[in-house]
């Protein structure tokens, strides 16, 4: 047997998620369609970007969790997971790399739709690196890292979905109060007291820490087996 390993194909990862793969995708399309239809003909150019970010981003950003949680169901949740855990796979390639690959795909789809909305509703608007790119990317990455971490600890996808859902609602309702800048909705539903750059840096640090801890847990097969 050859000893070198690589990542499972993206196609199989997607197929293995079943219907869960399409859910965030459909929700993003619905959000984009709603924004396009609702704001067509609006002349409020000053606030248009704010509307697009809010109506498109509030649902689209946390929904990356569905993909990430679905990615690890077979490794931590299903009966017979021992068969997978006993395989000589590379923990890095099967863990953090798959999370990053899936998040990247999500971000690409997210931006295609976002750019389409901006071109359609705000022609001539130029995207700003920090506000329009870094912040939403890190918001998505933060939810991806959080989902990875929760799945490793809780090992139950339904419980993970509930935690992420409740957490997202709490953040939205409180508009980031009590979060000390760790607010992944700053891009779509900004807290006026938060500085964008500070928020971006905090999200980056939290995501990196989350990914690191999750990966460490993913390497501990005895823990995953429990």
């Amino acid at each position, binding site marked *: 047997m050859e000893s070198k*390993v*690589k990542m499972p194909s993206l196609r199989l990862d997607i197929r293995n998620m079943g219907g869960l793969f399409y859910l965030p995708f459909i929700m993003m399309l619905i959000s984009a369609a709603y924004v396009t239809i609702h704001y067509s003909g609006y002349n409020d150019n000053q606030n248009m970007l704010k509307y697009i970010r809010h109506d498109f981003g509030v649902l689209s950003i946390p929904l990356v969790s569905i993909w990430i949680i679905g990615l690890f169901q077979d490794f931590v949740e*299903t009966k017979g997971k021992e*068969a997978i855990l006993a*395989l*000589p796979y590379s923990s890095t390639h099967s863990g953090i790399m798959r999370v990053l690959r899936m998040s990247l795909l999500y971000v690409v789809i997210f931006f295609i739709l976002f750019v389409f909305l901006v071109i359609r509703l705000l022609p001539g608007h130029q995207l700003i690196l920090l506000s329009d790119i870094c912040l939403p990317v890190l918001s998505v990455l933060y939810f991806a890292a959080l989902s990875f971490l929760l799945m490793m600890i809780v090992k139950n996808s339904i419980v993970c979905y509930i935690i992420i859902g409740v957490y997202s609602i709490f953040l939205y309702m409180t508009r980031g109060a009590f979060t000390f800048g760790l607010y992944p909705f700053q891009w779509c539903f900004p807290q006026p007291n938060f500085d964008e750059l500070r928020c971006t840096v905090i999200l980056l640090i939290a995501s990196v820490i989350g990914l690191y801890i999750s990966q460490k847990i993913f390497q501990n097969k005895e823990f995953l087996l429990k």
Partner: protein
Amino acid sequence: MDRLVIDHVSKHFGKTAALQSVSLQIGHGLFGLLGPNGAGKTTFMRVLATLLAPDSGSMRYKDIQWGKQPERVRNILGYLPQNFNVFKNISGYECLDYIGVLKGLRDKKQRRAQIETLLERVNLTAEAHKKTGHYSGGMKRRLGIAQALLGNPEIIIVDEPTAGLDPEERIRFRNVLREVAAGRIIVLSTHIVEDIEATCSSVAVIKKGIATQFDSLSKLAQEAAGHVWLWKVRPEQAVDLQSKVNVISSTTTEDHVELRVLAKESPSREAIPVSPTLEEGYLIWNQR
């Protein structure tokens, strides 16, 4: 011949001793691990599969040490756990392809050729492109053994493979195990004596985490030598005796019933001593 050597392996969960100084030497072919539920079989299989680290003791095969080189161990190992119910949204073929990648089979052509051969071997070619979520219990087990065989591992661990299968699937699965046993070690854990009888050439019995190895099945059967009696009685007498003596089995003929009785001494003058079966040897060992 290379042997898998397990040397005084112990594993505790809190104060419960799941394995107590287990020592076994396993050669090529099918090796059975027999024991009642909760005896420590699954823990032993998980330790063997490098999923659990033992508290003490060592395991080695050729120059590979379990404690020091778990990655190398995983490269020579195939594992089929009690429940194989993963990758429900993809087909059997895709499932094997996915696992093949995780096993490090990088060459796509070779991997696919191997998958096709294995699917044929376990008789799943016709169902290869069906979602595994729609497979029957028997088909899932056969897919499980196919994934365990991917990459041609030298050691295969199979945990309770026939539990819950109908007789036809059970026989089919045993045949598959016998076919693939040549040139490799297969450790089969079960509480079903019939599985061991039908497939294995040597066996260990485990109870409360303590394992005893027997070089052959007949040696385990001999544990009951002098304890098994054949007693021919009238049908009405047989019903009466069920509660008085330890009846293992009974065969009804035209005018009488033949009882196989397990007892240290002859239960009656009419009872005659007979050669014990594997099941009887196991029962006697288990009652100690």
